[in-house]
């Protein structure tokens, strides 16, 4: 079987992005402080989220606001499976259905978490994919709120805003980089596959795609479930590194942050997702430094709490106003080195 030109270019692009991801990881490992290492780790986790978001949003071009909920489902599902029984006896004494009576190894827990999240995504997706535009977005928002409410109020399972602790910390920077590389390849190949091309076509012109025999709803559902499973992977990577999770990180602030990353970089390309994640993460770190009211060039700057939220909003507003297709537009990284 010969690979199409798009797939070949996709492999080259994914390989180039992987090289960059590995280089950033190596530099951090050798030169970074413990704090910086943690920061870079969370950037990679956000990269997994943004890539998961790109699969559906970038190809079907329907805004999804529930991605952090899927990340949360993945994280909690894995946490509940993997946390040792003696710790769960302490933290989840009233857990129903025997959830505190068993414990699995990290890999099995991760696989179960991915399957559970994928199943939830399938059920939600059956509703989402038949809607388009604002309807789909509102349903995704409602789903985010429902999941967050469940996390908060079923304290017997999720512990709400309290820390769900005792998750074995089996991941390190190398694991998340390896995972990012695999996800970059799969997302990029999906984009260039016949499914990805057909999905992008249907986003351009539904009727035109239909007349070419494109089964839009089925493709949207495939992308949606794939996206949900990738978001579960991000949640698992988050939980397996920190060892402690709570409901708050899987809500609006995180939705907004990762959305800004994708919009800024350019949602239509995988390179845009990667670029947006790293630029916004770096920029946000600088803004956070400014928030503390530092002395800069001899000037004692005032404390400016909330500046990071404003900065993210400004990024979204300016990107949408000046370059709605994001920094990368329709360009992928290999366009820099390969002839078009």
């Amino acid at each position, binding site marked *: 079987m010969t690979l199409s030109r798009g797939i070949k270019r996709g492999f080259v692009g994914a390989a180039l992005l992987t090289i960059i991801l590995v280089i950033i990881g190596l530099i951090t490992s050798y030169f970074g402080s413990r704090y910086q290492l943690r920061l870079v780790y969370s950037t990679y986790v956000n990269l997994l989220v943004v890539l998961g978001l790109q699969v559906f949003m970038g190809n079907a071009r329907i805004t999804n606001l529930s991605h952090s909920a899927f990340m949360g489902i993945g994280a909690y599902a894995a946490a509940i499976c993997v946390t040792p029984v003696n710790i769960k006896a302490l933290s989840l004494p009233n857990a129903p259905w025997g959830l505190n009576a068993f414990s699995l190894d990290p890999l099995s827990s991760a696989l179960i978490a991915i399957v559970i999240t994928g199943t939830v995504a399938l059920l939600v997706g059956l509703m989402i994919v038949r809607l388009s535009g604002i309807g789909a977005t509102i349903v995704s928002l409602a789903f985010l709120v429902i999941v967050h409410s469940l996390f908060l109020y079923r304290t017997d399972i999720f512990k709400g805003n309290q820390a769900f602790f005792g998750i074995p910390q089996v991941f390190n920077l190398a694991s998340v980089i390896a995972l990012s590389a695999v996800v970059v390849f799969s997302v990029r190949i999906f984009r260039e596959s016949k499914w990805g091309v057909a999905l992008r*076509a249907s986003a*351009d012109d539904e009727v035109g*795609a239909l007349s070419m025999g494109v089964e839009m709803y089925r493709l949207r559902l495939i992308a949606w479930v794939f996206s949900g499973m990738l978001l579960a992977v991000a949640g698992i990577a988050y939980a397996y590194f920190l060892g402690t999770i709570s409901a708050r990180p899987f809500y609006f602030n995180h939705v907004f942050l990762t959305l800004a990353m994708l919009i800024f970089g350019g949602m239509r390309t995988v390179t845009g997702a990667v670029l947006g994640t790293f630029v916004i993460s770096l920029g946000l770190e600088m803004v956070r430094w400014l928030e503390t009211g530092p002395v800069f060039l001899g000037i004692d700057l005032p404390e400016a709490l909330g500046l990071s939220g404003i900065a993210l909003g400004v990024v979204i507003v300016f990107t949408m106003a000046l370059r709605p297709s994001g920094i990368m537009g329709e360009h992928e990284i290999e366009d820099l080195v390969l002839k078009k």
Partner: protein
Amino acid sequence: MLRVRNLRVYHGIIEAVHGINIEVPLGKCVALLGPNGAGKTSTISAITGVVKSEGSVSFEDRNLSSLSVEDRIKAGISVSPEGRRVFANLTVEENLVLGGALKPKCRSDRIAEWFKTFPILGERRAQPAGTLSGGEQQMLAIARALMNEPKILLLDEPSLGLAPKIASQIFEMIKNLKQENITILLVEQNATQALKLSDYAYFLNNGHILAEGKPEELGGREDLMAELTGIT
């Protein structure tokens, strides 16, 4: 032969096509003429399965009525839709890849052939299709429809919105396709050009077939031409 029997198409509660019969023999070019709102595009959409319809659509004695769009394409029916509908954000090449999605074997060779036939499309293979001119987009739409190597090509208003010179090029292209023995159902408002190309023609208005016959017969009927131009 493509055979449409007692075809009725509804848009909500409105009946757009009222039980028409059409036949397109293999190797022939049949024109479907009529003014705006006559039901031409509804007829094409019903044949391709994009809209639901009553009556029967059969091709080479196989009833297609219950088949999906995809299965009708596999049965050999392809369409270049009204308004071209190229995928603006996809590259020229991706448009062609999608056009040939149901026949992946030797697809790259067929794309290369099209780039030879239309060098301008080859030059712009990596460009978003939305950046092409109207005429180039129409060429792409027709090439895309032919990527599945159909037995019958449905062309819905291929000259719509094109400058006369560009429209002539498109009609020249259709003439070449006809010479290659491709069966064509041509929907057009430009009756003069369509009648020149076709072997048989139907005149549709308000969802009814008002007349049918050889091009020279229909072309000579001033009442029909007046319906088309709106000049009485």
